[in-house]
Protein backbone atom coordinates (compact mmCIF):
# COMPACT_ATOMS: atom_id res chain seq x y z
CA UNK A 1 0.00 0.00 0.00
CA UNK A 2 2.75 2.42 0.92
CA UNK A 3 4.39 2.60 -2.49
CA UNK A 4 1.18 3.09 -4.45
CA UNK A 5 0.98 6.87 -4.09
CA UNK A 6 3.77 7.74 -6.49
CA UNK A 7 4.00 11.42 -7.46
CA UNK A 8 2.61 12.54 -10.78
CA UNK A 9 6.03 13.64 -12.08
CA UNK A 10 6.86 10.02 -12.81
CA UNK A 11 3.87 9.67 -15.10
CA UNK A 12 4.93 12.74 -17.06
CA UNK A 13 8.37 11.26 -17.53
CA UNK A 14 6.97 8.01 -18.84
CA UNK A 15 5.05 9.74 -21.62
CA UNK A 16 8.28 10.51 -23.41
CA UNK A 17 9.14 6.82 -23.62
CA UNK A 18 8.66 5.14 -27.00
CA UNK A 19 5.18 3.69 -27.73
CA UNK A 20 4.20 0.48 -26.00
CA UNK A 21 4.43 -2.77 -27.94
CA UNK A 22 1.09 -4.03 -29.16
CA UNK A 23 -0.29 -7.41 -30.19
CA UNK A 24 -3.75 -8.07 -31.62
CA UNK A 25 -4.44 -4.38 -31.07
CA UNK A 26 -3.79 -4.36 -27.34
CA UNK A 27 -0.80 -3.40 -25.20
CA UNK A 28 1.29 -6.47 -24.50
CA UNK A 29 3.81 -7.51 -21.88
CA UNK A 30 5.75 -10.76 -21.76
CA UNK A 31 5.83 -12.82 -18.57
CA UNK A 32 7.86 -16.04 -18.41
CA UNK A 33 7.62 -16.50 -22.17
CA UNK A 34 3.88 -15.93 -22.34
CA UNK A 35 2.23 -12.92 -23.98
CA UNK A 36 -0.06 -10.99 -21.69
CA UNK A 37 -2.55 -8.62 -23.31
CA UNK A 38 -4.06 -5.78 -21.32
CA UNK A 39 -7.61 -4.63 -21.85
CA UNK A 40 -10.23 -2.31 -20.46
CA UNK A 41 -13.92 -3.04 -20.11
CA UNK A 42 -14.45 -1.33 -23.48
CA UNK A 43 -11.76 -3.10 -25.48
CA UNK A 44 -12.28 -6.52 -23.91
CA UNK A 45 -15.10 -7.99 -26.08
CA UNK A 46 -13.48 -6.95 -29.35
CA UNK A 47 -10.08 -8.23 -28.25
CA UNK A 48 -11.53 -11.65 -27.42
CA UNK A 49 -13.35 -11.76 -30.76
CA UNK A 50 -10.07 -10.96 -32.50
CA UNK A 51 -8.30 -13.69 -30.58
CA UNK A 52 -10.93 -16.23 -31.53
CA UNK A 53 -10.44 -15.26 -35.17
CA UNK A 54 -6.69 -15.78 -34.64
CA UNK A 55 -7.23 -19.49 -33.89
CA UNK A 56 -7.25 -19.21 -30.12
CA UNK A 57 -9.97 -21.82 -29.98
CA UNK A 58 -10.13 -22.57 -26.31
CA UNK A 59 -10.51 -20.52 -23.16
CA UNK A 60 -8.87 -22.77 -20.62
CA UNK A 61 -9.33 -20.51 -17.65
CA UNK A 62 -11.09 -17.36 -16.55
CA UNK A 63 -10.77 -15.98 -13.05
CA UNK A 64 -11.05 -12.77 -11.10
CA UNK A 65 -8.34 -11.07 -9.05
CA UNK A 66 -8.80 -8.39 -6.40
CA UNK A 67 -6.04 -5.77 -6.23
CA UNK A 68 -7.55 -3.81 -3.34
CA UNK A 69 -4.28 -4.01 -1.42
CA UNK A 70 -2.21 -2.86 -4.39
CA UNK A 71 0.98 -4.58 -5.45
CA UNK A 72 0.84 -4.32 -9.21
CA UNK A 73 3.49 -2.67 -11.35
CA UNK A 74 3.34 -4.65 -14.58
CA UNK A 75 0.38 -2.97 -16.26
CA UNK A 76 1.29 -0.67 -19.20
CA UNK A 77 0.82 3.05 -18.57
CA UNK A 78 -1.92 3.39 -21.20
CA UNK A 79 -4.20 1.10 -19.21
CA UNK A 80 -5.76 2.58 -16.12
CA UNK A 81 -5.66 0.12 -13.24
CA UNK A 82 -8.89 -0.70 -11.49
CA UNK A 83 -9.68 -2.70 -8.39
CA UNK A 84 -10.55 -5.99 -10.11
CA UNK A 85 -9.06 -7.86 -12.98
CA UNK A 86 -10.65 -10.55 -15.09
CA UNK A 87 -7.87 -12.85 -16.26
CA UNK A 88 -8.54 -15.05 -19.27
CA UNK A 89 -6.10 -17.74 -20.35
CA UNK A 90 -6.49 -18.78 -23.95
CA UNK A 91 -4.93 -21.67 -25.78
CA UNK A 92 -4.38 -22.23 -29.47
CA UNK A 93 -3.99 -25.86 -30.44
CA UNK A 94 -2.91 -24.95 -33.96
CA UNK A 95 -0.14 -22.57 -32.87
CA UNK A 96 0.69 -24.43 -29.64
CA UNK A 97 0.62 -21.13 -27.89
CA UNK A 98 -0.93 -19.61 -24.82
CA UNK A 99 -2.02 -16.04 -24.41
CA UNK A 100 -3.43 -14.24 -21.39
CA UNK A 101 -5.82 -11.30 -21.29
CA UNK A 102 -6.02 -9.11 -18.21
CA UNK A 103 -9.04 -6.82 -18.23
CA UNK A 104 -9.42 -4.05 -15.66
CA UNK A 105 -12.83 -3.85 -13.99
CA UNK A 106 -13.80 -1.28 -11.39
CA UNK A 107 -16.00 -2.09 -8.45
CA UNK A 108 -19.65 -2.10 -9.48
CA UNK A 109 -18.72 -2.02 -13.15
CA UNK A 110 -20.04 -4.57 -15.60
CA UNK A 111 -17.95 -6.40 -18.17
CA UNK A 112 -19.19 -8.24 -21.26
CA UNK A 113 -19.63 -11.98 -20.96
CA UNK A 114 -17.73 -13.97 -23.58
CA UNK A 115 -20.21 -16.84 -23.36
CA UNK A 116 -21.29 -16.31 -26.97
CA UNK A 117 -17.71 -16.70 -28.17
CA UNK A 118 -16.64 -19.41 -25.76
CA UNK A 119 -19.55 -21.27 -24.13
CA UNK A 120 -17.06 -22.98 -21.81
CA UNK A 121 -16.71 -19.78 -19.80
CA UNK A 122 -20.21 -20.14 -18.37
CA UNK A 123 -19.12 -21.82 -15.15
CA UNK A 124 -15.93 -19.77 -14.88
CA UNK A 125 -17.77 -16.46 -15.12
CA UNK A 126 -20.26 -17.68 -12.57
CA UNK A 127 -17.35 -18.46 -10.27
CA UNK A 128 -15.81 -15.01 -10.77
CA UNK A 129 -19.20 -13.46 -10.02
CA UNK A 130 -19.64 -15.65 -6.96
CA UNK A 131 -16.19 -14.96 -5.54
CA UNK A 132 -15.72 -11.28 -6.48
CA UNK A 133 -19.14 -9.90 -7.41
CA UNK A 134 -17.95 -9.02 -10.92
CA UNK A 135 -20.99 -8.57 -13.15
CA UNK A 136 -20.87 -10.13 -16.61
CA UNK A 137 -23.58 -8.70 -18.85
CA UNK A 138 -24.92 -11.04 -21.47
CA UNK A 139 -24.32 -14.14 -19.38
CA UNK A 140 -27.24 -16.60 -19.70
CA UNK A 141 -27.45 -17.61 -16.05
CA UNK A 142 -25.31 -15.47 -13.77
CA UNK A 143 -25.85 -16.86 -10.30
CA UNK A 144 -23.76 -18.27 -7.48
CA UNK A 145 -22.02 -21.50 -8.26
CA UNK A 146 -19.94 -22.57 -5.27
CA UNK A 147 -21.48 -20.60 -2.40
CA UNK A 148 -25.08 -21.15 -1.26
CA UNK A 149 -27.70 -19.19 -3.22
CA UNK A 150 -28.57 -17.00 -0.22
CA UNK A 151 -24.97 -16.16 0.72
CA UNK A 152 -24.13 -12.54 1.52
CA UNK A 153 -20.89 -11.06 0.21
CA UNK A 154 -18.16 -12.29 -2.07
CA UNK A 155 -15.62 -14.37 -0.19
CA UNK A 156 -12.45 -13.91 -2.27
CA UNK A 157 -12.56 -10.12 -2.03
CA UNK A 158 -9.67 -8.81 0.01
CA UNK A 159 -12.02 -7.01 2.38
CA UNK A 160 -13.84 -10.24 3.17
CA UNK A 161 -12.06 -11.29 6.32
CA UNK A 162 -10.89 -14.78 7.03
CA UNK A 163 -12.56 -16.11 10.14
CA UNK A 164 -15.32 -13.52 10.20
CA UNK A 165 -17.81 -16.30 10.74
CA UNK A 166 -16.93 -17.98 14.02
CA UNK A 167 -16.79 -21.74 13.85
CA UNK A 168 -18.39 -23.38 16.81
CA UNK A 169 -17.17 -26.76 17.81
CA UNK A 170 -19.78 -28.66 19.73
CA UNK A 171 -19.69 -32.04 21.29
CA UNK A 172 -22.06 -34.53 19.78
CA UNK A 173 -25.31 -34.67 21.74
CA UNK A 174 -25.37 -37.59 24.11
CA UNK A 175 -27.73 -40.37 23.33
CA UNK A 176 -30.32 -41.18 25.98
Amino acid at each position, binding site marked *: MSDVATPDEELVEEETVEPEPELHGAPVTV*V*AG*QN*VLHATVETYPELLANL*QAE*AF*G*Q*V*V*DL*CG*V*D*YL*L*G*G*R*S*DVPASIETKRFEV*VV*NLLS*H*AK*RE*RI*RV*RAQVAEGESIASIF*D*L*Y*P*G*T*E*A*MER*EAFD*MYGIDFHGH*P*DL*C*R*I*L*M*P*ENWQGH*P*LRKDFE*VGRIPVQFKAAPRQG
Partner: protein
Amino acid sequence: MALTEDTETTDSGQADDGLVGDASRVTGIDNAVLRMSEAEVAALTQETTDEFGDSKMIINMGPSHPSTHGVLRLMLEMEGETVLRSKPIIGYLHTGMEKTGEQLTYLQGCTNVTRMDYAAPLFTELAFSLAVENLLEVEIPDRATWIRMMMCELNRMTSHLLFMATNGMDLGAVSMMIYGWREREEVLRFFEKVTGLRMNHNYIRPGGVAADLPDGWQEDVLGLCDLIEPRLEEYDILMTGQPIWRERLQGVGVINEAECLALGATGPLLRSAGSSWDLRRDMPYLAYDDVDFDVIIGTYGDSFDRYAIRLNEIRESIRIVRQCVANMPKGDYRVQNKKVTPPPRARIDESMEALIHHFKIFTEGFKVPEGETYAAVESPRGEVGVYLVSDGSSTPARMHVRAPSFVNLQTLPHLMHGGLLADAVAIISSVDPIMGEVDR
Protein backbone atom coordinates in the same frame (compact mmCIF):
# COMPACT_ATOMS: atom_id res chain seq x y z
CA MET B 1 -6.86 -57.16 -29.70
CA ALA B 2 -10.31 -55.68 -29.76
CA LEU B 3 -9.07 -52.26 -28.73
CA THR B 4 -7.32 -51.39 -31.93
CA GLU B 5 -10.46 -50.85 -33.88
CA ASP B 6 -11.69 -48.15 -31.57
CA THR B 7 -8.57 -46.30 -30.63
CA GLU B 8 -5.58 -45.29 -32.56
CA THR B 9 -2.28 -43.99 -31.43
CA THR B 10 -0.46 -41.20 -33.11
CA ASP B 11 3.13 -40.27 -32.92
CA SER B 12 4.11 -36.70 -32.28
CA GLY B 13 4.42 -33.95 -34.83
CA GLN B 14 1.03 -34.27 -36.40
CA ALA B 15 -0.27 -30.83 -37.27
CA ASP B 16 -3.70 -29.82 -36.07
CA ASP B 17 -6.09 -28.54 -38.68
CA GLY B 18 -6.54 -25.30 -36.80
CA LEU B 19 -10.05 -26.19 -35.74
CA VAL B 20 -11.55 -23.34 -33.81
CA GLY B 21 -14.17 -24.00 -31.18
CA ASP B 22 -17.41 -23.40 -32.98
CA ALA B 23 -19.55 -21.67 -30.43
CA SER B 24 -22.72 -21.61 -32.48
CA ARG B 25 -22.71 -25.37 -32.56
CA VAL B 26 -22.92 -25.56 -28.83
CA THR B 27 -25.19 -22.62 -28.24
CA GLY B 28 -27.37 -24.11 -30.97
CA ILE B 29 -28.10 -27.08 -28.76
CA ASP B 30 -28.49 -24.75 -25.85
CA ASN B 31 -31.60 -26.60 -24.79
CA ALA B 32 -29.35 -29.20 -23.19
CA VAL B 33 -28.65 -26.98 -20.20
CA LEU B 34 -31.36 -26.41 -17.64
CA ARG B 35 -30.82 -22.83 -16.51
CA MET B 36 -33.15 -22.60 -13.56
CA SER B 37 -32.59 -21.83 -9.93
CA GLU B 38 -33.87 -24.08 -7.19
CA ALA B 39 -36.66 -21.65 -6.35
CA GLU B 40 -37.88 -21.63 -9.93
CA VAL B 41 -37.92 -25.40 -10.05
CA ALA B 42 -39.80 -25.54 -6.77
CA ALA B 43 -42.38 -23.09 -8.11
CA LEU B 44 -42.81 -25.19 -11.24
CA THR B 45 -43.42 -28.38 -9.35
CA GLN B 46 -46.06 -26.63 -7.25
CA GLU B 47 -47.96 -25.50 -10.30
CA THR B 48 -48.16 -28.53 -12.60
CA THR B 49 -49.62 -26.45 -15.38
CA ASP B 50 -50.63 -27.98 -18.69
CA GLU B 51 -47.52 -26.71 -20.35
CA PHE B 52 -45.37 -28.51 -17.84
CA GLY B 53 -47.85 -31.16 -16.97
CA ASP B 54 -47.65 -34.90 -16.69
CA SER B 55 -45.20 -35.66 -19.44
CA LYS B 56 -42.13 -33.88 -18.01
CA MET B 57 -40.73 -33.74 -14.55
CA ILE B 58 -37.64 -32.43 -12.85
CA ILE B 59 -35.83 -34.77 -10.55
CA ASN B 60 -32.77 -34.46 -8.40
CA MET B 61 -29.88 -36.86 -8.55
CA GLY B 62 -27.46 -36.54 -5.70
CA PRO B 63 -25.66 -34.88 -3.99
CA SER B 64 -25.26 -38.08 -2.03
CA HIS B 65 -25.58 -40.68 -4.72
CA PRO B 66 -23.11 -43.55 -5.04
CA SER B 67 -22.56 -42.97 -8.75
CA THR B 68 -21.91 -39.23 -8.60
CA HIS B 69 -18.36 -39.71 -7.28
CA GLY B 70 -18.76 -37.52 -4.27
CA VAL B 71 -21.22 -34.72 -3.86
CA LEU B 72 -22.28 -33.83 -7.37
CA ARG B 73 -25.96 -32.98 -7.67
CA LEU B 74 -27.76 -33.03 -10.97
CA MET B 75 -31.09 -31.45 -11.71
CA LEU B 76 -32.58 -33.50 -14.53
CA GLU B 77 -35.57 -32.66 -16.64
CA MET B 78 -37.05 -36.00 -17.62
CA GLU B 79 -39.60 -37.17 -20.08
CA GLY B 80 -40.23 -40.74 -19.11
CA GLU B 81 -36.81 -42.33 -18.96
CA THR B 82 -35.23 -39.77 -21.29
CA VAL B 83 -33.08 -36.92 -20.01
CA LEU B 84 -33.94 -33.64 -21.70
CA ARG B 85 -32.16 -30.77 -19.98
CA SER B 86 -29.94 -30.97 -16.97
CA LYS B 87 -27.84 -28.79 -14.71
CA PRO B 88 -24.96 -29.84 -12.51
CA ILE B 89 -25.15 -28.17 -9.12
CA ILE B 90 -21.86 -27.99 -7.27
CA GLY B 91 -20.40 -26.37 -4.20
CA TYR B 92 -21.22 -29.00 -1.62
CA LEU B 93 -17.53 -29.57 -0.98
CA HIS B 94 -16.51 -25.94 -1.22
CA THR B 95 -14.10 -25.15 1.58
CA GLY B 96 -12.55 -21.95 0.27
CA MET B 97 -9.20 -23.47 -0.61
CA GLU B 98 -8.28 -20.53 -2.84
CA LYS B 99 -8.87 -18.18 0.08
CA THR B 100 -6.88 -20.49 2.34
CA GLY B 101 -4.09 -20.43 -0.24
CA GLU B 102 -3.80 -16.68 0.25
CA GLN B 103 -3.11 -17.19 3.95
CA LEU B 104 -0.44 -19.86 3.54
CA THR B 105 3.17 -19.30 2.55
CA TYR B 106 4.46 -20.68 -0.74
CA LEU B 107 6.04 -23.58 1.11
CA GLN B 108 2.79 -24.42 2.88
CA GLY B 109 0.80 -23.95 -0.30
CA CYS B 110 1.43 -27.50 -1.46
CA THR B 111 -0.29 -28.98 1.57
CA ASN B 112 -3.34 -27.03 0.51
CA VAL B 113 -3.43 -27.70 -3.23
CA THR B 114 -2.66 -31.39 -2.83
CA ARG B 115 -6.10 -31.82 -1.27
CA MET B 116 -7.93 -30.58 -4.34
CA ASP B 117 -7.66 -33.48 -6.75
CA TYR B 118 -7.32 -36.21 -4.17
CA ALA B 119 -7.05 -38.98 -6.75
CA ALA B 120 -4.10 -37.33 -8.49
CA PRO B 121 -2.61 -35.03 -5.87
CA LEU B 122 0.89 -34.82 -7.35
CA PHE B 123 -0.30 -32.99 -10.45
CA THR B 124 -1.76 -30.03 -8.61
CA GLU B 125 1.38 -29.89 -6.49
CA LEU B 126 3.44 -29.94 -9.66
CA ALA B 127 1.48 -27.14 -11.33
CA PHE B 128 1.72 -25.05 -8.16
CA SER B 129 5.46 -25.67 -7.83
CA LEU B 130 6.08 -24.84 -11.48
CA ALA B 131 4.18 -21.59 -11.07
CA VAL B 132 6.19 -20.61 -7.98
CA GLU B 133 9.44 -21.54 -9.74
CA ASN B 134 8.39 -19.39 -12.70
CA LEU B 135 8.09 -16.41 -10.38
CA LEU B 136 11.30 -17.22 -8.49
CA GLU B 137 13.12 -17.93 -11.75
CA VAL B 138 14.93 -20.93 -10.33
CA GLU B 139 16.01 -23.93 -12.39
CA ILE B 140 15.52 -27.21 -10.64
CA PRO B 141 18.12 -30.01 -10.89
CA ASP B 142 17.72 -32.80 -13.43
CA ARG B 143 17.18 -35.47 -10.86
CA ALA B 144 14.31 -33.55 -9.29
CA THR B 145 12.73 -33.18 -12.72
CA TRP B 146 12.95 -36.87 -13.45
CA ILE B 147 11.72 -37.86 -9.99
CA ARG B 148 8.75 -35.55 -10.50
CA MET B 149 8.05 -37.07 -13.88
CA MET B 150 8.24 -40.64 -12.63
CA MET B 151 6.07 -39.97 -9.60
CA CYS B 152 3.49 -38.16 -11.74
CA GLU B 153 3.26 -41.03 -14.19
CA LEU B 154 2.83 -43.48 -11.32
CA ASN B 155 0.15 -41.17 -10.01
CA ARG B 156 -1.54 -41.14 -13.41
CA MET B 157 -1.62 -44.92 -13.20
CA THR B 158 -3.28 -44.85 -9.77
CA SER B 159 -5.79 -42.30 -10.93
CA HIS B 160 -6.73 -44.26 -14.03
CA LEU B 161 -6.87 -47.48 -12.02
CA LEU B 162 -9.28 -45.73 -9.69
CA PHE B 163 -11.30 -44.76 -12.75
CA MET B 164 -11.28 -48.39 -13.92
CA ALA B 165 -12.54 -49.44 -10.50
CA THR B 166 -15.30 -46.86 -10.17
CA ASN B 167 -16.35 -47.12 -13.80
CA GLY B 168 -16.69 -50.87 -13.35
CA MET B 169 -18.63 -50.38 -10.14
CA ASP B 170 -21.02 -47.88 -11.72
CA LEU B 171 -21.78 -50.24 -14.58
CA GLY B 172 -22.17 -53.34 -12.49
CA ALA B 173 -18.78 -54.94 -13.11
CA VAL B 174 -18.13 -55.20 -9.40
CA SER B 175 -15.13 -57.50 -9.71
CA MET B 176 -13.38 -54.74 -11.64
CA MET B 177 -13.84 -52.49 -8.64
CA ILE B 178 -11.90 -54.92 -6.47
CA TYR B 179 -9.17 -55.40 -9.08
CA GLY B 180 -8.72 -51.70 -9.71
CA TRP B 181 -8.39 -50.96 -6.05
CA ARG B 182 -6.02 -53.87 -5.57
CA GLU B 183 -3.55 -52.62 -8.16
CA ARG B 184 -3.88 -49.01 -7.08
CA GLU B 185 -3.05 -50.00 -3.53
CA GLU B 186 0.25 -51.51 -4.68
CA VAL B 187 1.31 -48.18 -6.19
CA LEU B 188 0.06 -46.26 -3.18
CA ARG B 189 2.25 -48.49 -1.01
CA PHE B 190 5.24 -47.30 -3.01
CA PHE B 191 4.07 -43.69 -2.59
CA GLU B 192 3.89 -44.23 1.15
CA LYS B 193 7.46 -45.48 1.11
CA VAL B 194 8.69 -42.43 -0.78
CA THR B 195 6.54 -39.61 0.58
CA GLY B 196 5.29 -40.98 3.88
CA LEU B 197 1.65 -40.76 2.85
CA ARG B 198 -0.63 -42.77 0.61
CA MET B 199 -2.47 -39.65 -0.57
CA ASN B 200 -2.10 -35.87 -0.17
CA HIS B 201 1.64 -36.32 -0.38
CA ASN B 202 2.98 -32.75 -0.24
CA TYR B 203 5.96 -34.29 -2.03
CA ILE B 204 6.56 -31.99 -4.98
CA ARG B 205 7.51 -28.61 -3.56
CA PRO B 206 8.82 -25.36 -4.98
CA GLY B 207 12.50 -26.02 -5.59
CA GLY B 208 12.36 -29.78 -6.10
CA VAL B 209 10.89 -32.67 -4.19
CA ALA B 210 10.62 -33.25 -0.45
CA ALA B 211 12.94 -36.26 -0.24
CA ASP B 212 15.14 -38.40 -2.42
CA LEU B 213 13.92 -41.80 -3.55
CA PRO B 214 14.57 -44.52 -0.95
CA ASP B 215 17.14 -47.29 -1.44
CA GLY B 216 15.94 -50.05 -3.69
CA TRP B 217 13.36 -47.90 -5.46
CA GLN B 218 14.31 -49.31 -8.86
CA GLU B 219 13.21 -52.82 -7.89
CA ASP B 220 9.99 -51.47 -6.39
CA VAL B 221 9.09 -49.44 -9.45
CA LEU B 222 9.99 -52.11 -11.98
CA GLY B 223 8.12 -54.63 -9.82
CA LEU B 224 5.03 -52.42 -10.05
CA CYS B 225 5.33 -52.17 -13.83
CA ASP B 226 5.75 -55.93 -14.16
CA LEU B 227 2.77 -56.48 -11.87
CA ILE B 228 0.34 -54.09 -13.49
CA GLU B 229 1.12 -54.67 -17.16
CA PRO B 230 -0.28 -58.24 -17.32
CA ARG B 231 -3.22 -57.18 -15.16
CA LEU B 232 -4.22 -54.73 -17.86
CA GLU B 233 -4.52 -57.68 -20.23
CA GLU B 234 -6.85 -59.25 -17.69
CA TYR B 235 -9.00 -56.11 -17.70
CA ASP B 236 -9.19 -56.40 -21.46
CA ILE B 237 -10.50 -59.94 -21.14
CA LEU B 238 -12.87 -58.96 -18.35
CA MET B 239 -14.35 -55.87 -19.98
CA THR B 240 -13.10 -54.57 -23.32
CA GLY B 241 -14.43 -57.35 -25.48
CA GLN B 242 -17.50 -58.12 -23.41
CA PRO B 243 -20.81 -57.54 -25.21
CA ILE B 244 -22.52 -56.23 -22.07
CA TRP B 245 -19.71 -53.78 -21.37
CA ARG B 246 -19.74 -52.52 -24.95
CA GLU B 247 -23.50 -52.28 -24.97
CA ARG B 248 -23.43 -50.03 -21.92
CA LEU B 249 -20.71 -47.72 -23.23
CA GLN B 250 -20.62 -47.61 -27.00
CA GLY B 251 -22.52 -44.70 -28.46
CA VAL B 252 -23.37 -43.40 -24.98
CA GLY B 253 -22.51 -39.78 -24.23
CA VAL B 254 -21.19 -38.78 -27.62
CA ILE B 255 -19.40 -35.45 -28.04
CA ASN B 256 -17.48 -34.03 -30.98
CA GLU B 257 -14.26 -32.10 -31.12
CA ALA B 258 -15.78 -28.68 -31.80
CA GLU B 259 -18.07 -29.02 -28.78
CA CYS B 260 -15.17 -30.08 -26.58
CA LEU B 261 -13.07 -27.10 -27.63
CA ALA B 262 -15.93 -24.65 -27.22
CA LEU B 263 -16.79 -25.98 -23.78
CA GLY B 264 -13.17 -25.90 -22.66
CA ALA B 265 -12.97 -29.66 -22.14
CA THR B 266 -9.47 -31.14 -21.88
CA GLY B 267 -7.86 -34.48 -21.19
CA PRO B 268 -9.35 -37.87 -22.13
CA LEU B 269 -12.68 -36.16 -22.84
CA LEU B 270 -11.11 -34.06 -25.60
CA ARG B 271 -8.96 -36.90 -26.88
CA SER B 272 -11.95 -39.23 -27.10
CA ALA B 273 -13.42 -36.87 -29.70
CA GLY B 274 -10.38 -37.39 -31.89
CA SER B 275 -8.37 -34.33 -30.96
CA SER B 276 -4.73 -35.23 -30.59
CA TRP B 277 -3.86 -32.83 -27.81
CA ASP B 278 -1.71 -33.70 -24.83
CA LEU B 279 0.28 -31.04 -23.01
CA ARG B 280 3.01 -33.55 -22.32
CA ARG B 281 3.70 -33.79 -26.03
CA ASP B 282 2.43 -30.50 -27.42
CA MET B 283 3.74 -28.08 -24.82
CA PRO B 284 6.34 -30.17 -23.01
CA TYR B 285 7.26 -29.45 -19.42
CA LEU B 286 9.61 -31.40 -17.10
CA ALA B 287 11.58 -33.83 -19.31
CA TYR B 288 8.75 -35.18 -21.45
CA ASP B 289 10.81 -34.20 -24.48
CA ASP B 290 13.29 -36.93 -23.61
CA VAL B 291 10.90 -39.88 -23.30
CA ASP B 292 8.97 -41.82 -25.89
CA PHE B 293 5.25 -42.27 -25.54
CA ASP B 294 2.12 -42.18 -27.66
CA VAL B 295 -0.89 -39.97 -27.26
CA ILE B 296 -4.00 -42.13 -27.26
CA ILE B 297 -6.99 -40.73 -29.10
CA GLY B 298 -10.46 -42.02 -29.84
CA THR B 299 -12.68 -41.68 -32.86
CA TYR B 300 -16.30 -41.74 -31.70
CA GLY B 301 -16.19 -39.49 -28.65
CA ASP B 302 -18.32 -41.90 -26.64
CA SER B 303 -17.93 -43.35 -23.17
CA PHE B 304 -16.24 -46.45 -24.52
CA ASP B 305 -13.50 -44.36 -26.13
CA ARG B 306 -12.90 -42.59 -22.85
CA TYR B 307 -12.61 -45.93 -21.08
CA ALA B 308 -10.25 -47.30 -23.73
CA ILE B 309 -8.12 -44.15 -23.73
CA ARG B 310 -7.59 -44.35 -19.99
CA LEU B 311 -6.79 -48.05 -20.11
CA ASN B 312 -4.15 -47.45 -22.77
CA GLU B 313 -2.80 -44.39 -21.02
CA ILE B 314 -1.87 -46.68 -18.14
CA ARG B 315 0.22 -48.67 -20.64
CA GLU B 316 1.87 -45.48 -21.88
CA SER B 317 2.57 -44.38 -18.31
CA ILE B 318 4.25 -47.71 -17.63
CA ARG B 319 6.38 -47.09 -20.71
CA ILE B 320 7.41 -43.67 -19.41
CA VAL B 321 8.10 -45.00 -15.92
CA ARG B 322 10.43 -47.67 -17.31
CA GLN B 323 12.35 -45.00 -19.20
CA CYS B 324 12.56 -42.91 -16.04
CA VAL B 325 14.09 -45.83 -14.16
CA ALA B 326 16.60 -46.40 -16.92
CA ASN B 327 17.59 -42.76 -17.33
CA MET B 328 17.33 -41.38 -13.79
CA PRO B 329 20.17 -38.87 -13.47
CA LYS B 330 22.30 -38.54 -10.37
CA GLY B 331 22.51 -35.37 -8.35
CA ASP B 332 20.41 -33.25 -6.06
CA TYR B 333 16.73 -33.80 -5.52
CA ARG B 334 16.14 -30.13 -4.77
CA VAL B 335 17.71 -26.88 -5.79
CA GLN B 336 20.65 -25.75 -3.67
CA ASN B 337 19.39 -22.22 -3.39
CA LYS B 338 19.57 -21.06 0.23
CA LYS B 339 16.64 -18.76 -0.33
CA VAL B 340 14.22 -21.53 -1.18
CA THR B 341 15.68 -24.68 0.33
CA PRO B 342 15.86 -25.42 4.05
CA PRO B 343 19.26 -26.62 5.29
CA PRO B 344 19.84 -30.38 5.66
CA ARG B 345 18.78 -31.88 8.97
CA ALA B 346 22.33 -32.72 10.04
CA ARG B 347 23.49 -29.12 9.68
CA ILE B 348 20.88 -27.92 12.16
CA ASP B 349 22.59 -29.81 14.99
CA GLU B 350 25.95 -28.16 14.45
CA SER B 351 25.23 -24.70 13.12
CA MET B 352 23.29 -21.91 14.78
CA GLU B 353 22.86 -20.15 11.44
CA ALA B 354 21.39 -23.26 9.88
CA LEU B 355 18.91 -23.49 12.75
CA ILE B 356 17.87 -19.85 12.30
CA HIS B 357 17.65 -20.32 8.56
CA HIS B 358 15.48 -23.40 8.98
CA PHE B 359 13.26 -21.60 11.45
CA LYS B 360 12.85 -18.57 9.20
CA ILE B 361 11.94 -20.63 6.15
CA PHE B 362 9.30 -22.61 7.98
CA THR B 363 7.76 -19.72 9.91
CA GLU B 364 7.98 -16.73 7.58
CA GLY B 365 8.54 -18.58 4.33
CA PHE B 366 10.52 -17.18 1.45
CA LYS B 367 9.64 -14.03 -0.44
CA VAL B 368 8.63 -14.32 -4.08
CA PRO B 369 9.17 -11.43 -6.53
CA GLU B 370 6.13 -9.45 -7.60
CA GLY B 371 4.39 -10.69 -10.70
CA GLU B 372 1.79 -13.08 -12.06
CA THR B 373 2.12 -16.37 -13.88
CA TYR B 374 0.18 -19.34 -15.14
CA ALA B 375 1.59 -22.87 -15.22
CA ALA B 376 -0.26 -25.87 -16.55
CA VAL B 377 0.35 -29.61 -16.66
CA GLU B 378 -1.56 -32.55 -18.09
CA SER B 379 -3.28 -34.31 -15.22
CA PRO B 380 -5.25 -37.56 -15.68
CA ARG B 381 -8.38 -35.41 -16.05
CA GLY B 382 -7.05 -32.73 -18.35
CA GLU B 383 -5.21 -29.50 -17.98
CA VAL B 384 -4.63 -28.51 -14.39
CA GLY B 385 -3.26 -25.01 -14.17
CA VAL B 386 -2.28 -22.65 -11.38
CA TYR B 387 -2.57 -18.89 -11.75
CA LEU B 388 -0.46 -17.12 -9.16
CA VAL B 389 -0.25 -13.44 -8.34
CA SER B 390 2.55 -12.40 -6.03
CA ASP B 391 2.77 -9.01 -4.35
CA GLY B 392 6.35 -9.59 -3.25
CA SER B 393 5.53 -11.05 0.16
CA SER B 394 5.80 -14.66 1.29
CA THR B 395 2.14 -15.48 0.67
CA PRO B 396 0.42 -15.33 -2.73
CA ALA B 397 -1.93 -12.40 -3.35
CA ARG B 398 -4.06 -14.71 -5.46
CA MET B 399 -3.89 -18.41 -6.06
CA HIS B 400 -6.34 -19.78 -8.59
CA VAL B 401 -6.44 -23.39 -9.65
CA ARG B 402 -7.84 -24.20 -13.06
CA ALA B 403 -9.40 -27.54 -12.23
CA PRO B 404 -10.06 -29.82 -15.21
CA SER B 405 -13.05 -31.50 -13.57
CA PHE B 406 -14.70 -28.12 -12.93
CA VAL B 407 -14.62 -27.28 -16.62
CA ASN B 408 -15.31 -30.79 -17.87
CA LEU B 409 -18.51 -30.92 -15.82
CA GLN B 410 -20.00 -28.38 -18.23
CA THR B 411 -20.12 -31.06 -20.90
CA LEU B 412 -22.43 -33.25 -18.79
CA PRO B 413 -25.74 -31.68 -19.97
CA HIS B 414 -24.58 -32.03 -23.58
CA LEU B 415 -23.47 -35.62 -23.08
CA MET B 416 -26.67 -36.64 -21.35
CA HIS B 417 -29.11 -34.77 -23.58
CA GLY B 418 -31.54 -37.22 -25.14
CA GLY B 419 -30.06 -40.24 -23.38
CA LEU B 420 -31.54 -42.56 -20.82
CA LEU B 421 -31.35 -42.00 -17.09
CA ALA B 422 -29.47 -45.28 -16.73
CA ASP B 423 -26.87 -43.96 -19.16
CA ALA B 424 -26.40 -40.83 -17.07
CA VAL B 425 -24.53 -42.99 -14.57
CA ALA B 426 -22.21 -44.28 -17.28
CA ILE B 427 -21.65 -40.75 -18.56
CA ILE B 428 -20.82 -39.18 -15.20
CA SER B 429 -18.43 -42.02 -14.61
CA SER B 430 -16.75 -41.59 -17.99
CA VAL B 431 -16.10 -37.88 -17.38
CA ASP B 432 -14.40 -38.97 -14.13
CA PRO B 433 -14.91 -35.78 -12.08
CA ILE B 434 -13.22 -35.37 -8.72
CA MET B 435 -15.43 -33.18 -6.59
CA GLY B 436 -12.54 -32.04 -4.41
CA GLU B 437 -11.13 -30.05 -7.28
CA VAL B 438 -14.50 -29.03 -8.69
CA ASP B 439 -15.52 -27.27 -5.50
CA ARG B 440 -12.10 -26.39 -4.09
